[in-house]
Structures are given as C-alpha cells and as structure tokens.
C-alpha cells in the first residue's frame, strides 16, 4: 500500500488514473452497446464517463500556468530543433488547456453563453497540433539515433556496411529499394528497442493522435477504438510516472 500512497500523492498521477478510467468507460460503453446490453447500463456507463470528464476538467484548471512554465524552461535548451519543438508543443498545450477551462466554465454553468461545440473544436485543434509537434520531435530523435547507429556499424564494417558498399554498384531499382527499406526498418527497431523512453513516447503520442483526429472529423474511427487508444496512452503515461526513468527527457 505504501507505493500507492507515494504514487497518488502526486496530483498528476491521479489525473492519469481518472483519464484511464474515463477512456475505459468509453471503451466499455461501446463494447456493451455492440453486445446488446440494456440501455440503462449503457446510460449509466456514459453518465460515469461524463462525470469523469467534467471532474478532470475541473482538476486541470490552472494547468496553462504549468504548460507556460514548461515552455519557458524549454527555451533554454541547447539543441535548436528540440528547443523549437518543445517550446511550440508546450505553448499549444497551454492554449488547449485554456480552451478546456472555458469549456469547463460552460459545462459547470458559470458561463452558459459559451458555444460548447466551437470551443471544443478549438481545443482539439490545439491538442492535435501539439501532438504533431511531439511526433516530429520523436522523429528527429529517432533520425539522429539511427544515423549514429548506422555510422557505428559502418565503422565496425558489419554486414550492413558491406551491403552499403555493394549498393555503390549500379543495380536495378525495386529489389534494391526493398532491401534498403528492410535495413532501415531493422535499424529503426534496434534503435527503439535500445531506447524505451523514446519508444514509449512514440507509442503514447501515436495513440493520443487518434482522439483529436476522430473528434475533429479528420479520421473517423469507432468509439471503441478511440476509447482503446485513450486507455492505452493513459496506461503508458502511468508507467512513466511509476518508473521515472521511462520518461523522455528533456
């Protein structure tokens, strides 16, 4: 029980648990509906999901300050690409949280004149952009690591290096391309396997991506799939809290 106390003493940890519960409810609701459960049960699950969502919005009040602080810190990074990506990502997250606060004010009855649909779309746009910037940062890191790995292999003169030397001979297109892709893929998998924090971050951002894509209508998927993606990304995020070494730094 001691690990639980330490874990949930951080408010972010509880927020992640509630997020996992929220998307779990979404998944459960969709699954129950598909399997023909009674309308009352589905309604109860949906109601619980709505409560969890509203409660999470309440807990996120003031999160914009958090994101702006993180953006201020990110400006001092040494690497130019990382500096750009992280600052932009945090700024977008701050905007997303600000729109989220407006939505909460509307839902809680403080500002009934708020156009829920418009602000919801706005918030998801900022969220989507933040996720895209995060994924570009991940791609940049992967690229850098792959180049370092490939360079290392060339120096050691492994089979891959020899194959690269072979490539210098003029050869026919498709087979060559296929081989090259296979090599790149193996290199990618090797890099990801050697960097669990990076792998976790890529998976988390990829899962999260489907949520705003669905809500903005850019890539409609089933509610069950959205719930599953949300649940998966929340679980991955909880893992990074439980094991801080799994968090991608900076």
């Amino acid at each position, binding site marked *: *029980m001691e690990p*639980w106390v330490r874990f949930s003493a951080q*408010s972010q940890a509880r927020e992640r648990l509630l997020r996992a519960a929220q998307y779990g409810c979404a998944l459960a609701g969709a699954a129950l509906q598909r399997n023909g459960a009674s309308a009352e049960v589905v309604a109860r699950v949906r*109601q619980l999901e709505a409560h969890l969502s509203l409660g999470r919005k309440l807990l996120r009040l*003031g999160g914009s300050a*958090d994101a702006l602080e993180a953006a201020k810190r990110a400006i001092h990074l040494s690497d130019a690409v990382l500096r750009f990506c992280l600052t932009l990502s945090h700024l977008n997250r701050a905007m997303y949280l600000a729109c989220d606060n407006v939505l909460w004010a509307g839902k809680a009855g403080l500002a009934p004149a708020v156009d829920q649909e418009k602000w919801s779309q706005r918030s998801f746009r900022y969220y989507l952009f933040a996720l895209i910037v995060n994924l570009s940062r991940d791609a940049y890191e992967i690229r850098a690591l792959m180049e370092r790995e490939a360079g290392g292999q060339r120096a050691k003169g492994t089979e891959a290096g020899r194959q690269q030397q072979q490539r210098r001979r003029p050869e026919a297109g498709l087979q060559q391309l296929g081989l090259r892709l296979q090599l790149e893929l193996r290199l990618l998998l090797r890099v990801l396997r050697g960097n669990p924090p990076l792998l976790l971050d890529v998976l988390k951002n990829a899962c999260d991506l489907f949520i705003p894509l669905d809500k903005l209508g850019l890539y409609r998927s089933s509610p069950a799939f959205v719930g599953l993606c949300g649940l998966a990304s929340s679980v991955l995020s909880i893992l990074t809290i439980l094991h801080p070494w799994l968090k991608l730094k900076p």
Partner: protein
Amino acid sequence: AAMERFVDFTDRSQGRERLLRATQYTCMLLSYVIERKADKEELVLKLKQLEASMSSGRKMFRLGNTVHALVAARRTTQLPDVVPRVCLTASNLTRALYFVCDTVLWLKSVGLQPDIDAPKWRNWATKCYYFSLLMNLARDWYEVSWRLEHAVQKEKIKENSSWDKRNQELNCLKCDGLHVFFLLLFQILKNHPPLVLDMVKNLLEVWLPFVYRILSSCKKLHYEFLSGDLLDTK
C-alpha cells in the same frame, strides 16, 4: 516567480485539492452573504452551482484516500508516546471510514448506484469526520499541556536556584500564576508554529459549521422579523 510558486504548490500532494476546497468554502460564504439580496439571485445560483461542481470534483479526486488514511494509521501506531499514538491512530482510522462513506456518496451522485440512502451515509460521514477532528484536538491539547508543564517546572527550578535576594523579590513579583501561565503558553506556541496551525485549523473545522448554522438561523429570524411573520401582525 509567482507562477513558479503556484505550479510548485499545485504539483505537491493535495495542493490542488486544498485550493478547490478553499474555493468551495469561499463560494459558500459568498452565497450566504449575498443571499436574498435584491436582483442577485442569478449570481447566487451560479455560486451554488460552482460550489456543487467543486464538491463533486473533489469527491472524485479523493477516491482512494481511504488507503492514504489506513497507511497513516499504520504509521501512527509506531509513535513512542501513548496519548498521541492512540489519538492519531483513532483519528486516522475514523478518517478512513469517512472516506469510505464519501466514496459511497460519490457512487450515488454519479448514478452508478442510485438506490443508496444518501442521508444515512452523509450522517455517518459527518460523525466520522467530527470524531477524527476531536481526536486531533485531543492530541494538540496533550502536546501543549505537557510542554506547558515542562516550562512551568523549569521556571520553578530557576526561581529556587536564584541566589540574588533582590532577584528573588523581583521573581516573586513575576510569580503571579496566571501571568506566568499565559507568558509560557505564548512562548510555547511561538516556538511551535506547526502545532499552532494544526490546532487553529482543527478548531475552525469543528466550530465553523456550527457558527454557519447559527448565523443562518439568525439571519432567517431577522428577515422573518422584518417581514412581520414573527410578530404575526398581518
């Protein structure tokens, strides 16, 4: 720097929950103050809605605090002194029971278990909460009283071992019992700010609901008197 402090605070354990609690009670206070004033009904309604949503949000955030209270209870059974050990363990155990009642009430408010007898569980929750507060106050009282006893004994020793006769005369002047008592009490409280804060917080929590209820019934009587109901002059 102010933002950094805010971020630090809300990131720490329970920081955000305390902020929501403060906001909730501010809303309660504000809605009490401006209630029944002309053309402020909409504002009062909004304040009440805000208070309700803060309350339900906090209940959700508190899910799982039962485990916190049980772990704290296990920790306090290791305390060396008997009185703090008993008081704090009892306080933590009743706090765990309070959180169980709180969870049950949350299940009802969310619609998962609509056939829960809310007044009964709320009654139990209030009883558990008050009992744990009283146990905390008992322990505060014990801490202050043994420190006071020590300080009084030290003063007596100083008095007895003073050589200067004139000092003794002066000391006898200072020897006025109540005066010395309050001076020592003030010194103890000054040297132990956490104890003072804990005591003040517990006292407020015990008395504030009573004060609130007394004030609102006074206000009700006041308005009824003004409108003539009380004197039945209509």
